[in-house]
């Protein structure tokens, strides 16, 4: 495996499957009475979040702690960046404290990649703008892989805010790499223009979910939408939300996913999010397990 994880393209198909297999072992460890292993003892993981995050940061922090690494937290709002220190100087200060793995989230695309040039250890991209969020892609694909045994040939329907999602790029990249068929379904104003030609697009939700083994919702990114993109949320929900009546006639073993946080009644209805098909909470556990597997694969002597 490469030294850094910036986008899914840093990983070969075999490396992804290897992370899945190892992730399964780490998931078992999370069921033990003492959920801690000494593997990263003496290593330090720096969590650099230049943008608010709850679940991704908690997940990385707990993954590191479960492996006995020390963690230090850096958040932009309480840092010297407020005193006009540049990112580079901030990183060099941390580097002097001997950090082994940096987990970086930043609102601007490219910052994690830039940091790889300054430091000696490894960098994991925890989301850079709308560019990439590879560990979310890995945990989503892991969830599908674990449920169905393989990702190849599966039909995956993705609904919700495609345009402003950073998850979607990493998801599309990893699912295509593993041989899945993807269909996007959302309002035309929420479709970006960069989508891979192998991905199908429809505005008809019944058509999108008809053969789907996986139905995935993406959060309406209200904070990134700068103009009136949809008439209103209720109308969006009527036409493009994941609703019982739209997916009622589906076969028995499909799963419903969502990277969270979910907006009930907008991109997904509450009864679907709580149904037996929903794996939304399991995705959180899988996120912890796969991040542990990624730490294991990346850490250097």
């Amino acid at each position: 495996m490469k030294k850094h994880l910036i986008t899914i393209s840093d990983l070969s198909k075999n490396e992804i499957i290897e992370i899945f297999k190892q992730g399964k072992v780490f998931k078992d460890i999370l069921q033990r009475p003492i959920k801690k292993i000494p593997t990263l003892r003496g290593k330090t993981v720096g969590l650099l979040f230049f943008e608010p995050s709850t679940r991704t940061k908690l997940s990385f922090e707990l993954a590191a702690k479960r492996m006995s690494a020390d963690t230090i937290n850096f958040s932009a709002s309480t840092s010297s960046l407020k005193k006009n220190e540049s990112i580079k100087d901030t990183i060099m200060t941390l580097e002097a404290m001997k950090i082994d793995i940096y987990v970086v989230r930043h609102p601007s695309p490219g910052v994690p990649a830039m940091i790889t040039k300054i430091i000696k250890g490894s960098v994991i991209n925890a989301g850079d703008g709308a560019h990439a969020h590879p560990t979310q892609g890995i945990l989503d694909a892991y969830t599908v892989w674990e449920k169905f045994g393989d990702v190849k040939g599966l039909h995956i329907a993705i609904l919700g805010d495609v345009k402003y999602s950073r998850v979607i790029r990493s998801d599309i990249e990893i699912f295509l790499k593993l041989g899945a068929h993807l269909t996007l379904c959302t309002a035309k104003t929420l479709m970006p223009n960069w989508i891979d030609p192998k991905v199908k697009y429809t505005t008809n939700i019944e058509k999108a979910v008809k053969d789907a083994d996986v139905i995935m919702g993406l959060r309406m990114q209200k904070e990134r939408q700068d103009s009136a993109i949809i008439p209103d949320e209720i109308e969006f929900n009527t036409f493009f939300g994941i609703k019982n009546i739209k997916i009622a006639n589906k076969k028995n073993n499909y799963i419903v996913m969502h990277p969270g946080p979910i907006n009930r009644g907008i991109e997904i209805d509450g009864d679907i999010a709580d149904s037996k098909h929903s794996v939304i909470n399991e995705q959180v556990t899988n996120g912890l397990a796969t991040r542990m597997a990624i730490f294991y694969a990346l850490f250097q002597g």
Partner: protein
Amino acid sequence: MKAKNKIMEKIDIMRSLKRIAHEIVEFNKGTDSLIILGIRRRGVPLGKLINEEIKKTEGKSAPFGILDITLYRDDLSTLGEKPKVNSTEINFDINDKNIVLIDDVLYTGRTIRSAIDEIMDFGRPASVQVAVLIDRGHRELPIFANYIGRTIPTKKSEIIKVMTEETDGKWEVWIYEKLDK
């Protein structure tokens, strides 16, 4: 690596395992609080055979589990290529039980140290004992085996290879000489 000597045939291995099984139940007074744990990889087939022998003499076998000690190794950060992690399978309570760890070769003692650390993350056993097919000496930690198939004095430049049907297609023990690079 050059093969020097075959030191055990299948029949020798089976005799040793049979004796070890008897010693285990003798010392632990039956199988009531006994647990057998095989250390991946070659401790697993050895442990299974010992447990079968225990069943023959006692009428019932002990709960059998598998330990993968990779994540507990003390040399992970010095290895270039990270070893793959396999699952540890302990699907029963180990508190207040007598655990017998099974491995093929006892050498530096570091594997057993890792295994003991891992076991402690599952609970507090009454005792931990060690059974190995070969004890070749050169301990780097204060660790000993309670049950030993055969003690073989070796040079550090030698390698002891225990072959099992599950992992190598046959039961044999060989001694190899490391060749100078």
